[in-house]
């Protein structure tokens, strides 16, 4: 049976980006990155909970769920390493400051992985005894997640929440509302742009999808992931130039 290569244009772009980023991994080592607000704000959220004496709600929503088998749904998978590393960083500080962390997810594999990362975080924080597996909640669907989140927010008077992941744009506002009425600090970094449209109006700190994918590299002490992160800017600069040039040529009537 003869096989034929298809979608060659996409393959060329993919391989081109791949090679460029791989080169950047070696060339841009030692580069200094700008601050990702979500990370710093998440650690601030732990301190807020320590001051208020309340638990922290870490909700990763649909992170890790493969929706529709479509590329936009698959982006939730890209959030897995980052949100888990953020969870570890949060629980490390929570361990030091004696803050309980309650998490919720709609993805079963992610729930199992959360256990390892939380356990590691509390151990690094010097208080492995603070790890409680019952604080990792798995919900079969978004409805259960919302209802349980609100129940936790009300019952424990949650002092701060980190909602990094995917929450439906219409339902996340219900959780935001519960947090706002409790006077809780909200750090949000949603996956999709329509979710972020709600978060941008409610959250105290917000980051966008690309920043959220970068969190693991940002938190890593290794210079290589940071160099790859910086390399993304070359692709973005190229794209911006490409779009601007196309716009000018179109306006000038050269392109039709």
């Amino acid at each position, binding site marked *: 049976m003869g096989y034929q290569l298809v979608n060659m244009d996409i393959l060329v772009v993919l391989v081109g980006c791949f090679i460029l980023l791989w080169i950047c991994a070696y060339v841009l080592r030692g580069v200094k990155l700008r601050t990702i607000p979500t990370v710093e704000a998440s650690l601030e959220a732990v301190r807020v909970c320590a001051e208020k004496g309340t638990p922290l709600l870490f909700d990763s929503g649909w992170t890790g769920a493969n929706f529709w088998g479509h590329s936009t749904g698959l982006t939730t998978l*890209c959030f897995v390493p980052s949100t888990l590393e953020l969870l570890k960083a949060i629980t490390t500080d929570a361990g030091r400051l004696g803050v309980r962390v309650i998490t919720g997810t709609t993805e079963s594999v992610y729930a199992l992985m959360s256990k390892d990362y939380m356990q590691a975080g509390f151990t690094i924080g010097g208080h492995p005894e603070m790890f409680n597996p019952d604080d990792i909640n*798995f919900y*079969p669907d978004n409805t259960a997640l919302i209802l349980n989140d609100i129940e936790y927010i009300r019952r424990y008077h949650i002092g701060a929440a980190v909602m990094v992941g995917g929450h439906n744009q219409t339902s996340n*506002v219900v959780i935001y*509302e519960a947090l706002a009425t409790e006077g809780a600090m909200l750090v949000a970094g949603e996956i999709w742009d329509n979710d972020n449209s709600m978060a941008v109006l409610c959250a105290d700190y917000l980051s966008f999808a690309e920043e959220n994918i970068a969190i693991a590299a940002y938190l890593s002490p290794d210079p290589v*992931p940071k160099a790859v992160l910086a390399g*993304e800017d070359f692709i973005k600069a190229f794209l911006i130039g490409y779009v601007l040039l196309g716009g000018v040529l179109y306006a000038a009537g050269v392109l039709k």
Partner: protein
Amino acid sequence: MQQETGQSRTSEILGNLPTILGLIGMVIITSLYFMEPPWPPASMLRNATTLSLPWPVIVVSLLLIRKNIKNLTIGGSGMLYSVILLAGAIGMILLYFVNGIGDATLSGLYNNITIVGEMAVTSAIAISVFSPIIRVYRAKTWTMAFLIGLSILAFMTYTPIGQMLWPPIPVLGDWIQSYISGASDSAFWCSTYIGAVALIVRMTLLKEKLRP
């Protein structure tokens, strides 16, 4: 010296075996998008991994049941919730074993219980259109104030109010939706996918291991 390097390389490969196997699997499955007709081993691997997904759900569901049994035995808070959850879980499992997934009582219960939750959330969302948005949306910065202004414009564009107030309002709203929102949506997805490719690059460099 060579032996030491060899040993460290071997230990590096063995230590990263799950990532390496995952990457090989990813390349094989990705070939489905770039190869016609689909390569049978790629289809088989994709189907096998997809079909394995319910297994972790079973494990986590059992952990959830264990958690609520523990809560009942120690008399923790939310005991009523634990009782309802366990009774529901045991009842549903028994019904499943009696007549399988096609059982009318099982499907009726499942759908109706789900509807209760859906209704609660949908009602909360419906209310949020008027009530919480007014309280939660805070114009803390000029950007937020600008976005709230745009939200009001969008509201007026897609309801008769804008047309009634001043006909150019829906025209302006449509223009912003088509050009500004459309362009920013494309930029959003471009940056997200660049981030996704960068993530894979870091994985191939064995820098994203999914290991705490």
